[in-house]
């Protein structure tokens, strides 16, 4: 049992917690840089971020094995891409619409996913990718592979029909899937009180799956819930719905000042900032060093991206169809120490 920095956990080593902190800092740093590049007009279109929600995508993805699939990180989930090992320069190239390996400029925002790392990029239509994750999990199960699919979505997305079809389907077939509901209390300007009468976590049992709510600003809690869900999924126990409770700290997008969220509410949650909470367990100079390292990495990535040309317009109509052998989902980084020494781990709580 490891104690000390970070919340106590049977499962996370000091190295893990350092990695989690770094991934969260990286996510925040990349998004802050993205926002300023957007304001400078270097990023076209619109810009969305997950400020204050870093613990969710980072914590959940940290629990995945290399062969698991993320389908998909949404607009608040940059951390999932980063944990899987997505190239930072390519992220900025993609943001800026430069030529890049993730989307060749055909997509924007975080509408990408590096298939080589087992990540499927999102579509905008919420929450369509949950259904796709269900299909991936079905394939894993049909081939008796020890893999699971992880899917993210917001409180607002739970109102759409596809959410229901995915939940029912996954529960019915006891598929190896973990669904992460990011309840950040708003869908654009719409509070959850105008989205549903009861918290959707209550629906889990009615479909025949487990449902668990965690503090979405506690990266350890998110990690542990996801790890338990994954273990259960791999053991044939079917899917889990995890609700991570948090608040969206920025506007819906860069254009939105979120004046409909009260200052008190924001202040309440600012005091629960997931990065500060974990960082407070580390020595100040260690945190400073990490932040400097992260900043340097971002600087390099931005520089590389700015040096990359825009895509060649001649390619605008290429690749609508696949003409060769389809590439399959590859393996992503699986940094959690527990994968290295599974026997050393105690059973999940």
């Amino acid at each position: 049992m490891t104690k000390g920095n970070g919340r106590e956990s049977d499962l996370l080593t000091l190295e893990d917690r350092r990695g989690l902190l770094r991934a969260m800092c990286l996510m925040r740093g990349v998004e802050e840089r993205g926002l300023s590049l957007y304001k400078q007009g270097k990023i076209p279109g619109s810009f969305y971020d997950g400020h204050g929600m870093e613990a969710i995508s980072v914590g959940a993805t940290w629990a995945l094995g290399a062969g698991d699939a993320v389908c998909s990180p949404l607009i608040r989930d940059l951390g999932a891409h980063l944990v899987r090992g997505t190239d930072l320069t390519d992220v900025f190239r993609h943001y800026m619409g430069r030529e890049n390996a993730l989307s060749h400029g055909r997509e924007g925002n975080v509408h990408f996913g590096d298939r080589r790392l087992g990540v499927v990029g999102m579509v905008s239509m919420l929450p369509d990718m949950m259904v796709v994750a269900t299909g991936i999990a079905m394939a894993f199960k049909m081939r008796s592979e020890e893999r699971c699919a992880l899917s993210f979505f917001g409180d607002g997305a739970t109102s759409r029909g596809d959410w229901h079809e995915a939940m029912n389907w996954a529960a019915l077939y006891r598929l190896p899937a973990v669904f992460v509901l990011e309840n950040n209390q708003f869908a654009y300007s719409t509070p959850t009180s105008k989205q549903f009468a009861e918290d959707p976590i209550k629906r889990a049992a009615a479909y025949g799956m487990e449902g668990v709510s965690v503090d979405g600003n506690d990266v350890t809690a998110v990690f542990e819930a996801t790890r338990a869900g994954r273990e259960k999924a791999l053991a044939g126990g079917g899917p889990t719905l995890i609700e991570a409770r948090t608040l969206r700290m920025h506007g819906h997008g860069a254009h939105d000042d979120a004046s409909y969220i009260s200052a008190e509410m924001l202040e309440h949650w600012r005091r629960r900032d997931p990065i500060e909470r974990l960082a407070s367990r580390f020595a100040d100079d260690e945190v400073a060093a990490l932040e400097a390292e992260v900043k340097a990495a971002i600087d390099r990535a931005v520089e590389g991206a700015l040096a990359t040309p825009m895509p060649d317009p001649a390619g605008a109509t290429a690749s609508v169809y696949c003409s060769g052998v389809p590439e399959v989902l590859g393996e992503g980084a699986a940094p959690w120490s527990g994968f290295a020494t599974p026997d050393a781990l105690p059973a999940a709580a």
Partner: protein
Amino acid sequence: MAVRTYLQAITDGLHEAMLEDERVFVMGEDVGAFGGAFKVTAGLQEEFGPERVRDTPIAEAGIIGAAVGAAIAGLRPVCEMQFSDFVACGFDQLVNVAGKMHYRLGLAVPMVLRLPSGGGFAGGPFHSQNPEAWFMHAPGLKVLAPSTPEDAKGLLAAAIADPNPVVFMEHKHLYRRIKGEVPDGSYETPFTARVARPGTDLTVIAYGAMVHAATAAADEVEGASIEVLDLRSLAPLDEEAILVSVGKTSKVLVVDEANRTCAAGAEVASLIADRGFELLDGPVRRLATPDVPIPFSPPLEEAVIPTSSRIAEACRELLDY
């Protein structure tokens, strides 16, 4: 008369319809307190209250289907899809429930579905689509696509007054970019085409944002008199106005911002090739976005959506035919 943007004209149209007819109400995602993603419904909830300007859950089938129900029950719902792209999520309710109800059962469905559509601002594959042809191919729906503030307001009023389900294509890229004189008070614009720019040598047929690109192209082409026909209504399609214009010019270019195959322009071109064959002095040319998702990166997007210079080029080529 006052100068209004295309967007303001739509807001005005909603406002007047709500003042005049208490059956009219508005619903959609974030249309209430926030005034809509594009602020088209800004101020309406303050004036008319949360019952008549309703923020809904994220449920496109819910919005469209509930509108059908409310319309059947005697109200006049005007719904917004946050982006036209999301109408795919409520597609079935629109084409199978709303569109077929009157023919099957004699039950009218007076509703308007507002679809902020179109590209041109790096919206990417899911925030730039022009889905109107799907609805032209769905019996029982009417489909409108104004290009000017005046028509936007007048067609919206006519759509709300119409006893049928009307798909109202409002082009996002015109919202704040296009201004014009708009008559005060309420008026209805007929579901017919309009000569946006008269000419005698060649007709460019377009609608929505492409009307402006076509007009700019017509201005650009020297030594020829080019007519621009603004369809305004895609279903019903003003076949006579199309044939009259082709009869006058004998040459025609049909422009679509939508993906080429089976687009509105395909129908228009096929109409001319059939009923207007004897009027023609050259091939019926089409210019459209090729069959690709709309890419995000500006040079790629600019390469696929028809521009005024590509329209002008196609005009010149056809004039030389």
